């Protein structure tokens, strides 16, 4: 396979207009031929693309694959980003023990029991967002009216970031996640957000409050830059991912009344959210790693120094794991499927730290939305929906709805 590679998949591959909720067709096609294939990165280097469930799990959990972005062969989907990202990486882009040291400073804030205790506060945030969106109106953009405000308010509360600053951090986050941002814009956005969070952390160091940024700011074993780096990671991961899961899930469910009916059963909601996470897997570009040793995987020989992209979206539609005799095919949505093995939050030591919070927010937001607005429907023709195809986090630009 290494000597005569088949036509390599260009990364990142475009989405299909006809099937906007699924992975880009080039990845689905690659998954149908081999679990590990060749791909071409924008800068011209080639790397491996892993599409199978078992292979993706191995890459993300085996220490022979590194997440350290400072490695010269680390695969990047945007040309020229290496310097910006590698300059001062947050713990998402570091290996243990550096990664564990920084991650463990914030794990206490995302314990399952702490998140469970936050449910009433999340419910209140969801209810108030719906009140504001619907008051005196019969039509709204669900993205700006609901999907974005809910997780933004929650992460602001946890981090200690003033919600009044949302327009700034939401806009800068979009720039940082877009793969059409110029290097100049990217670097500018990164610096603005670093300056903003460093300033906030400096004030909290003087006058600590009961929030994550304060707890990080008063530590003597963290540089101000590390505090701001962790702050950026939590702020972006905390609102962008959940916001896009809410808007995509809503768009997907809107013309499926049988599925919406399942959300009315509180006992079915957690399982339904796992299936939505599996089916939509919003990190459409996959997770990058670099091999530190030679590894035989999925019929390929991955050499030390080779870049690898672990494609979560195809792994989550692996028929051998999620399909099965008599069951719903893995490509289809089935809210009663046991989808708990999905990799939407990644796998291995870098698996999403905020997943208990994301689950709670999605369960409460989706169940409440469809309960309170039973007549919810699209306000524009379905084929006019605008998807975020240029972002590392897939989602919706807007979602005009009426009720």
């Amino acid at each position: 396979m290494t000597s005569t590679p088949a036509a390599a998949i260009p990364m990142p591959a475009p989405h299909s207009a006809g099937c906007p909720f699924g992975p880009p067709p080039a990845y689905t096609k690659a998954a149908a031929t081999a679990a590990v294939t060749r791909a071409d990165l924008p800068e011209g280097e080639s790397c491996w693309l892993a599409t199978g469930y078992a292979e993706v799990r191995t890459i993300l959990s085996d220490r022979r694959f590194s997440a350290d972005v400072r490695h010269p062969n680390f695969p990047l989907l945007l040309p020229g980003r290496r310097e910006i990202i590698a300059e001062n990486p947050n713990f998402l882009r570091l290996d243990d023990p550096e990664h564990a040291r920084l991650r463990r400073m914030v794990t206490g804030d995302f314990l399952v029991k702490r998140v469970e205790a936050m449910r009433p506060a999340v419910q209140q945030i969801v209810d108030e967002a719906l009140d504001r969106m619907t008051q005196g109106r019969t039509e709204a953009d669900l993205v700006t009216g609901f999907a974005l405000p809910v997780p933004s308010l929650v992460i602001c509360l946890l981090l200690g970031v003033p919600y009044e600053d949302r327009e700034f951090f939401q806009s800068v986050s979009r720039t940082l996640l877009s793969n059409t941002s110029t290097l100049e814009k990217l670097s500018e956005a990164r610096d603005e957000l670093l300056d903003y969070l460093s300033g906030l952390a400096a004030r909290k160091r003087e006058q600590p409050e009961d929030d994550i940024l304060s707890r990080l700011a008063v530590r003597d074993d963290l540089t101000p830059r590390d505090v701001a780096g962790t702050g950026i990671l939590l702020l972006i991961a905390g609102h962008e991912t959940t916001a896009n899961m809410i808007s995509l899930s809503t768009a997907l469910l809107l013309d499926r009344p049988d599925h919406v009916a399942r959300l009315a059963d509180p006992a079915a909601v957690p399982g339904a959210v796992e299936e939505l996470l599996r089916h939509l897997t919003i990190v459409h570009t996959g997770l990058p790693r670099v091999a530190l040793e030679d590894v035989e995987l999925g019929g390929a020989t991955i050499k030390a120094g080779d870049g690898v992209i672990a494609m979560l979206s195809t792994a989550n539609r692996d028929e051998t794991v999620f399909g099965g005799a008599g069951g719903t095919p893995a490509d289809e949505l089935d809210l009663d499927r046991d989808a708990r093995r999905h990799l939407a939050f990644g796998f291995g030591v870098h698996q999403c730290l905020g997943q208990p919070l994301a689950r709670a927010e999605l369960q409460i937001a989706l169940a409440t939305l469809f309960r309170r607005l039973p007549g919810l429907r699209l306000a524009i023709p379905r084929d006019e929906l605008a998807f975020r195809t240029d972002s590392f986090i897939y989602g919706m630009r807007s979602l005009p709805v009426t009720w």
Partner: protein
Amino acid sequence: MQVNVDRDRCCSSGMCVTTMPAVFDQDDQDSLVILRQITFRPDQFADLRLAAQLCPGGAITVTEDEPAELDD
């Protein structure tokens, strides 16, 4: 069935607590996994195997008592 947790491998994802809150907990001091039970009922075995598979850090090991149970 025996269950072992390796706290050095725990990355505090909380998957075990989400899967089996009666069996697993997260330590208030260091956020790492703790076992709330040491003996298990047969009706818990399937979920215990799942919790071990879902642990992203590979911190949970399940040892079957009898080889006959391996194929579940």
